[in-house]
């Protein structure tokens, strides 16, 4: 079964079972997102993809498209709120773009550019977060984790493992590793696992690859995240 929804005045077809973001992406309409990735179970936690559906705020990545919905995606109000939500992610962790090797390839940064975020607005939490450099090929820098759950889902759904989990409550959330020591080196992750490559920020990095592409020649240095996302999110992620 198919039907039509209307996003910002544009009629967009959908197939039964599609979420609003899936229908939008297929029709070439970008909705900002971080925890959503095609091919993964929708999560709905980052709330960047919030759209107004018939007047009500909904997460486009989890909310099913249904006949006749009127969806607002582009509005000054939503853009402002999405900018604030992105700023929340920036102050929650310790995101120092100039010294981060993911800079230019980072979706958090890309979304911030898209939303014209010029400062952090909120006071920083200066959270004390550890690094896990125990694994020979993969590094975790917890300072940059935004709890999008993508590595958790990637490990479970794509790699058939359960390397990651998210523990803690409230502002004390933390990414944990499934190994007796809690360290990545003692887990069964492999360098070519999806989970090692899916991180939208610089929290999970492949060692010794950080500067192979110089800063200035990276994905979001020249392209808008909306174009990149629409071009890539047909089949799979950026890898």
């Amino acid at each position, binding site marked *: 079964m198919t039907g039509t929804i209307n996003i910002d005045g544009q009629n967009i077809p959908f197939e039964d079972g599609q979420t609003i973001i899936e229908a939008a992406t297929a029709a070439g309409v970008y909705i900002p997102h971080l925890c959503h990735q095609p091919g993964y179970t929708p999560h709905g*936690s980052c709330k960047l993809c919030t759209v107004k559906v018939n007047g009500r*705020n909904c997460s486009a990545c989890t909310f099913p498209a249904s006949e006749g919905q009127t969806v607002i995606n582009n509005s000054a109000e939503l853009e402002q709120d999405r900018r604030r939500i992105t700023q929340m992610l920036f102050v*929650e962790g310790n995101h120092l773009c100039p010294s981060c090797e993911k800079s230019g390839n980072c979706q958090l940064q890309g979304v911030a550019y898209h939303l014209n975020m010029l400062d952090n607005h909120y006071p920083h939490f200066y959270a004390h977060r550890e690094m896990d450099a125990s694994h020979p090929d993969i590094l975790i820098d917890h300072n940059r984790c935004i709890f999008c759950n993508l590595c958790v889902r990637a490990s479970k759904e794509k790699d058939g493992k359960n390397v990651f989990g*998210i*523990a803690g*409550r409230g*502002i*004390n959330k933390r990414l944990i590793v*499934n190994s007796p020591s809690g360290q990545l080196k003692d887990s069964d992750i492999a360098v070519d696992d999806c989970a090692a490559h899916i991180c939208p920020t610089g929290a999970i990095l492949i060692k010794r690859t950080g500067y192979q592409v110089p800063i200035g020649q990276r994905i979001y240095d020249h392209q808008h995240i909306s174009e990149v996302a629409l071009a890539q999110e047909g089949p799979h992620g950026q890898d």
Partner: protein
Amino acid sequence: MKTFLTAILTEADYQPVRLLSLLRKIQAQYRHIPAEAIDYLAEALQIPRTQIIAVVEFYSFLHLTPQGRYDILISDSITDRMLDKENLLGYLSSMLKVNPGEVRADGLVSLNNTSCTGMCDQGPAGLVNGLPLTRLDRPRIDQIAASIERQLPVSEWPDYLFAVNDNIYKAGLLLNAPIAKGAAITGAFNRGLAATLAELDRSGLRGRGGAGFKTAAKWRFCAEETAEHHYVVCNADEGEPGTFKDRVLLNSHADQVFEGMTLAAAIIGAKQGFLYLRGEYLHLFDKLQAVLQQRRADGLLGENILDLGLDFDIEICLGAGAYICGEESALIESLEGKPGIPRNRPPYPVTSGYLNQPTVVNNVETFLAAAKIAVQGGDWFAGFGTDKSAGSKILSICGDCARPGIYEYPFGVNIEQILADCGATDVLGVQIGGPSGTFISNKEFKRQLAFEDLATGGSFIVFNDSRNVLDIVQNFTHFFAHESCGFCTPCRVGTSLLKKQLDKIIDGHGSAGDVVELESLCQLVKSHSHCGLGQTAANPILTTLQRYPDLYQKRLKNISYEPGFDLDGALETARRMARRNDAGAHLSQVED
């Protein structure tokens, strides 16, 4: 340890859904969840270790590091604070020689704060090894400290320390005349189940947890779903500060609640039900198990109930200190042995609930009312209350009044009447529906208690004019930041930012734009959060900002810019290191 773990695993039938109950038992036995137990459970239950750690870290009553052999938690609800809780905690801390949040070096005792324990009518309250301590005062604390130093088992402490009273001051149509055991089941079958559902519809009964969804519609939607199993869940996780009516209903009317669940089971076609009992009500667990056992013996639970061909049984599952589990989908996650993180909706529990099967989740009071309606009929119930809010509401009244306790009123009663009945004078305002509800001022006492005016899940906290509105708001705002599950950005980060921003203003570091900023943050958290917790977390600020804007403005400094911290205070370390304390080693917050 292995013997112990094998025993509890066998009892739990090696089912991963029973993880929370297993962890509660391990916590009680070893005062924490040892790494060895985590590895063993992961292997035995075939679940990732990360899930177990996630559960342990999610629930306040579970710990990865050992707590004291006497683990004391003091309720930090606003009503406890109004009863001098802070001073008593300080006294307890000095008597036991342990700071709040710490375990004493000898491992004998640990002390901490906890969210409202549901004893607001007999506070200040606390918990020792999960059991409630009520009416705390200095003599009682002396008794507690002495018992601990003598290492007297909690079971041998004097009974009066643990006394919990019902304090029912005003009974109405439900509390006045409980039904006879079995009457709702026989009544429903005699009338016919479809006709009984129609009666429930006619009664106008709406969910008593606060949201007010029509009960008959919920049951009908669930019944209409084709599935292998259907489930009935009673939500007894009453964590809203100031609410304790479900504690009383389960203490004195459990039969009727279980009968309401059985009625729901008959109508939706469920064979299994759960009572999700908040961990703070551990003291009711054995008593409720005995009620269930008696009902089985009486043929009111189990196979072929009353020879009517109905099979249904109820299991009690204890929570472990997480307010969010009162949200129905978080509660279901918790029942499945996971952290209580609210699900994405749709689908709703009536189509995909426990183990993704159609599930009815209702509040304790809803089941109590449904059972009575099955006996008396819908018109009887609809004859009370207002057009949109039929029947009665059972309130938990606490705070500044002469007679804190349980009061049942037909919907539509005005606030003035309630305040007169509970003996409240010089009232400044009332928090209706708990922190997630509304603060009303003394200019609004003609307003009605009803879904169409002031809705409440039962919490009714009275404040007299000696109270400071901002203290109240601060306590509530900290509560939400503490209880946020952390799943979505606006609530995880936003509730903590609200706490920071409010504290900044209250501590006198706010300047001109800070109240505006506070309000816009409130709107963001309210409109973008994933579930009811985040959507209501800003209510204490918003409802008081609307009524008392001056109180906030008065805290602001009359300058255009004020740093969010104490500048001179921040230099203290530098002064100490430099051994200086002259004028040049101090900085003023602003240019004079």
